[in-house]
């Protein structure tokens, strides 16, 4: 898997302060790795493969690929 090739570190970062909680990222996530409540969002770390589809699909640039890895 892609994630393993990158030392297994989570690299997808959501900026919650900028998020509109629209669910577009959740809809494209092949791993069901995003949890979205009314006004809260998080990546479910063990499920995410860093595939980046959510990064591309986010209409408002809230999800980033952070090549240094995300500190949880």
């Amino acid at each position, binding site marked *: 898997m892609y994630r393993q090739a990158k030392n297994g570190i989570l690299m997808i970062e959501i900026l919650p302060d900028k998020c509109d909680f629209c669910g577009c990222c959740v809809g494209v996530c092949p791993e*069901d790795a995003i949890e979205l409540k009314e006004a809260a969002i998080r990546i479910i770390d063990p499920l995410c493969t860093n595939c980046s589809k959510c990064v591309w699909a986010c*209409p408002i640039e809230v999800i980033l690929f952070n090549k240094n890895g995300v500190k949880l």
Partner: protein
Amino acid sequence: MKSEYDIVVVGAGPAGSVAAKYAASQGVSVLVLEKDRDVGYPVRCGEAVSKDRLAEFVEPDKKWICAEVDKFSFIAPNGNEVVLKFDQQGYVLERRIFDYELAKQASEAGAEILTRAYVNGLLFNNDKVTGVKYEYRGEQKEVNAKIVIAADGVESRVGRWAGLKTHVDFRDMECCVQYTVSNIKDINNETCYFYFGKNVAPSGYLWIFPKGNNTANIGLGISGLEGKKKSALSFLNEFMAEHYPDASVLTSIAGGVPCSITLEKISVQGIMLAGDAARQVNPLSGGGIASGMLGGSIAGRIAGESIKMNKPEHIFNYDSEWQDRYGKKHEIYDRIKNGIYDFTDEKFNSIADSFLKVPSDKRTLGKLFTTALINKPSLLIDVAKVFIK
């Protein structure tokens, strides 16, 4: 609140509320769980809908109609405009009131509605879904149900938990942003405007839908594939700066529209999917209000019948009934969408130029798509099936 219902509906959008109404009106017990604190808010929609298709479900009411439209205006990348009157008139809705009204109708039919109830799992007995887990005001709860109707929108997680592959290919996801703006003076209140072109909304379109009193919804959708290069938000901000630098933004929203064919399976043991969650959006237009309500109505009716007949397997008839009503049509729309997906600006310009030579009384949507796809004979048959009566 009871601990067990015949039917639990997840999501109080149009699909969920209509499903609840059609089920509850048969006398079975129905609970609707909505994650947000308000039904109908925040709105994630362009709010335009065809009059005829709405009429099947709800009496028109001025309180949720912002504008009545009867013309399309298509604007090519070079600025040339093609206007056509359509036979079926349409509405631009006030969704926050519209959705609220549908939920009210569901409750009048006997359904219970609970907001701020976030569904986060399913209950199973062997392989059959027997209820849902949800969080309500910080507490984890459970409710049993004979049938769960998942109308949880674009996210469609409930279906995944039941083993369905509901995620949308990111190329088919239209990633949208929309501003509701005031001080828009140069638009016609009976016209829906659509802008095309790679600088405006590649593999999608930009819309301006009038909402009356110099206000309008201005939004656009681009494919996730395009979003890889540049975000929907950047495209919209550039359009606004160029065309409406003085507009005041009253609301700003993001959203995803799954523009694909319907899921292969929309019912499994104890669970049915409806609306965006079932991918029942018209993949060509991205319109999902009417088709979501239709999907919800079929799901709700069949779920109610299944309970009353005590025949759990009756819910599997939902798939074929949806396919016959709109599913197959959406496959045609999807082929047309794929046919125009990669059109260049030059192509859009030449379509507009050719179409402007058509006498105005002969301009129809069918004729427009025929002009657009004249070099793709196999798709002309599809155009004839859905646009030419």
